[in-house]
């Protein structure tokens, strides 16, 4: 059984309520919520409806999979510190 891109595009317009945003989003949005990577919650949210896990295993590289799903969750304070450091760097060397 294969879940290639074309096969999965039929699901792109399906809508689900995003628990993070508090509104409806499409599957297409969830697939790219983190830039070119899916939202870390995508499997939790979608697995009951479509074969999202199998699809992602086919379409993501091992490294992308790990970046998306196998990293330990960061605390909010950690995230904020990282964003502060990143913002300082961007300010120091704008493109």
């Amino acid at each position, binding site marked *: *059984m294969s*879940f290639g891109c074309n096969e999965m595009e039929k*699901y792109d317009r*399906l*809508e*689900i*309520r*995003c*628990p*993070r*945003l*508090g*509104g*409806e*989003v499409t599957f297409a*949005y969830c697939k790219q*919520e*983190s*830039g070119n990577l899916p*939202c*870390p*919650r995508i*499997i*939790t*949210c*979608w*697995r*009951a*409806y*479509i*074969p999202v*896990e*199998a699809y992602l*295993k086919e379409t993501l590289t*091992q490294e992308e*999979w*790990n970046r998306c*799903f*196998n*990293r*330990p*969750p960061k*605390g*909010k*304070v*950690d*995230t*904020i*510190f*990282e*964003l*502060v*450091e*990143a*913002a*300082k760097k*961007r*300010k120091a060397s*704008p*493109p």
Partner: protein
Amino acid sequence: MKQVKVFLNEDEIPRQWYNIQADMPTPMSPPLHPGTGKPVGPDDLAPIFPMNLIEQEVSTERWIDIPEGVLEKLLLWRPSPLCRAYNFEKLLDAPVKIYYKNEGVSPPGSHKPNTAVAQAYYNKVFGTKKIYTETGAGQWGSALSMACQMFGLECKVFMVRVSYDQKPYRRLMMMTWGAECVPSPSDQTEAGRKILAENPDSPGSLGIAISEAIEDMLTDKNARYSLGSVLNHVLLHQTIIGLEAQKQMEKIGEYPDVVIGCAGGGSNFAGLSLPFARDKIHGKDIKIVAAEPASCPTLTRGPFAYDFGDLAMTTPLLPMHTLGHDFVPAPIHAGGLRYHGMAPIISHLVKENIIEGRAYSQLETFDVGVKWARTEGHIPAPETHHAIAAVVEEAMRAKEEGKEKVILFNWSGHGLVDLASYDAYFSGKLVNYELPEEEIKKAMETVGKYPKP
């Protein structure tokens, strides 16, 4: 005539917030600074938050006085009523009394202003001139906008574009309360410009919006950042909900067997439950349930029930065996999805078995949310549906066991600005597609053959 609502007089409003860190069975690990690897100290947080809120963030004092300036504003809608859901009880036909704390009575319609007002007040006292934040659908952004207006502070909200376009009403609420609401990604920050250069039609994300809010905040030394959930001081401010509820229940001679709240970041859940968690820590026999979203169709058709994966809180939602189905959890579920964005205090209390987590699918929660609206009248926010789903589950359990129960839950907000979500549900747009059983089975078999990542 039966008493439906229990009120507190204004002079009975709690004068202190409750800080559960004083009563934790085991101490919480402090967050570590990613740069130094050492525990984060107040000075590390100083460029981001005002020092008076940082002191609350790290405080282990059990009780913290609520300033008069905060109480004056909270009195606009607080104390919120404790209500008995007689009509919903009748529908369920179970041996339960259902009480709910109606947090939908605040001006923006949710529990969020309980901390927004406090944060705006402390920023004002500290000398902050402008507060930055990010918001998804705008519940937090609108609450903070109102609070900033109350204390004469500027407010700038980066709103995720997909929500900005979809949710005009909360955006307009923010504008009405005088805030600047910017769709994110925007051209106002380096972070936003970078995203737009790569994808001019980017719908944005919370990650981008928070990056923009923080970057923009750092350009102004008189500005600070504000967060509506997760952090300790946010949960602290929300405890006024549970403290009021305790007084109200005492007035009618009741005490809950079960306390329930919906948990996204954990703030409304914590607000109601932490004062009761204190009672539990000190020996009270009470169940405390955090209800959160998952797509798993536990009641409708699926073979899996979700539960917390481990006690170390390093794992996310794990599918557990139900109905005898021999399902081996896929490795993805050990990756940490579950706790993205969950308040550390809540995670810690789960680890200590003070709180239990349960997940409910959106379709089952909308079903009970609509039933609630059709019996009790008030239309709940979709987030609140999860708490109602847990109430139903507890009521059905009581019926099965033939035990009487008193259930208390946090009705965290109304859904009048979320009617588009109801429309999506009624029109069948909200994931009305479900795989045939056979196809799900095949998919799971396929997944099981993949090597572990």
